């Protein structure tokens, strides 16, 4: 923490600690999950104020059947698969990408989708598939990559899209009577792309305040205070705490890229099931680069993992500590569910910072 923020943080914390209302606030961003855990904020707020982790980690919400389908694809010896590092250890029904690589599948970790395009250029005799994962923050970068592949006639490149959209999934959270959320700590970098309009619509439709929040401890405290003030004033609108980066209108170039390259489709979310309009698939003009269509990838049903409560964790119905497997059989070294795989998963963050006490 920077020294010049200390006084202001104390002031914010005092306001939060004086809160007497029963309130549940949900963050929907893996970086928020980590930042809240790391800073110890959860332990500083009064017990009547609950800070829940929502479906904000793209790795954690990946359906098991989708991983199984990717695994089936990479067992084809002609395929080279590239993806972000977090995806390697996500458990499918019987295996993970990491396990498949150890058995000989050609799977490589990249930092940028452009690295996958470069690989396709350098491996003209192989089919190079980029496994795209991420929300609105990441999808425009992948969209530009697909456009570049198209423009340069790189026909051995294709995209296996597991991209998802945040705001429509939040509708499900707000409309589920079993999920009690009074306000949303909205993801800063997703909103940097989308702008605040989708959150304004959500706030008004469900009468829940939304605050687009940054990632430092002081940002999160300020975001919480802004939400509490709205609740006290009976307001339900969208505000931007993270003004340093987020513009009201978002990144218009990124939005235009998303619109041009992708269309919304049904997507499966771990813990939430299939939700229409929450996934992104390539539009018809780009469908030659859609790996699912190119290789006839079949849909594989999700088989529930015995005892794993990632679904309940991702919707804020329980905390990681309430899962019977937490810390016993499911650990970051040997994860059973995806919330323990990604460092941004709620379970991994709890494991590191708020372990179970005997």
């Amino acid at each position, binding site marked *: 923490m*920077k020294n010049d923020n200390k006084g202001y943080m104390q002031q914010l914390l005092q306001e939060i600690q004086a809160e007497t209302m029963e309130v549940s606030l949900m963050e929907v*961003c*893996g*970086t928020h999950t*980590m*930042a809240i855990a*790391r800073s110890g904020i959860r332990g500083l707020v009064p017990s009547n104020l609950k800070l829940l982790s929502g479906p904000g*980690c*793209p*790795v954690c919400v990946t359906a098991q059947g989708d991983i199984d389908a990717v695994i089936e694809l990479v067992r084809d010896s002609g395929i080279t698969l590239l993806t*972000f590092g*977090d995806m390697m250890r996500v458990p499918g029904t019987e295996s993970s990408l990491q396990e498949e690589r150890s058995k000989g599948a050609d799977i490589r970790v990249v*930092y*940028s*989708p*452009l*690295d996958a395009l470069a690989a396709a250029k350098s491996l003209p005799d192989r089919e190079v598939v980029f496994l795209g*994962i*991420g*929300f609105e*923050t*990441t999808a*425009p*970068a*992948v969209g*530009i990559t697909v456009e570049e592949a198209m423009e340069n006639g790189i026909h051995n490149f294709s995209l296996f899209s597991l991209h998802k959209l945040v705001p429509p999934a939040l509708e499900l959270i707000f409309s589920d009577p079993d999920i009690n959320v009074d306000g949303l700590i909205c*993801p*800063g*970098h*997703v909103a*940097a*792309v989308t702008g605040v309009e989708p959150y304004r619509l959500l706030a008004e439709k469900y009468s829940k305040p939304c605050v687009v929040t940054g*990632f*430092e401890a002081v940002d999160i405290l300020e975001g919480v205070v802004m939400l509490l003030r709205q609740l006290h004033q009976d307001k339900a609108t969208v505000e931007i705490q993270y003004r*340093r*980066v987020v513009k009201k209108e978002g*990144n218009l*170039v*990124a939005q235009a*890229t998303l619109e041009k390259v992708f269309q919304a489709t049904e997507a499966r979310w771990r813990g939430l099931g299939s939700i229409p309009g929450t996934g992104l698939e390539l539009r018809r003009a780009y469908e030659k680069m859609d790996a699912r269509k190119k290789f006839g990838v079949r849909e594989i049903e999700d088989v529930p993992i015995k005892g794993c409560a990632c679904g309940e964790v991702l919707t804020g119905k329980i905390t990681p500590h309430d899962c019977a497997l937490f810390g016993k059989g499911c650990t970051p070294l040997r994860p059973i569910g995806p919330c323990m795989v*990604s*460092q*941004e998963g709620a379970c991994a963050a709890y494991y*590191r910072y708020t372990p179970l006490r005997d």
Partner: protein
Amino acid sequence: MCLGVPGKVVQIMEHGSARVDVDGNQTDISIKLTPEVELGQFVLIHAGFAMEIIDQQVAEETMYLLKELLQYEE
């Protein structure tokens, strides 16, 4: 996953790319999502793309936060 890494644009190159300085290391990124970016400006980089133009103070704060989060890995 959506965290951005701050970098300073030190060279604008062909085909919508730029060279950036990230905490002393230079790397090439795409600026196709922020085509208006100018030499010397700071950007937030995500998955090899500049996703937003930011000011120097935000760049410094973000790098500070990032280093704190990286300690988590150690």
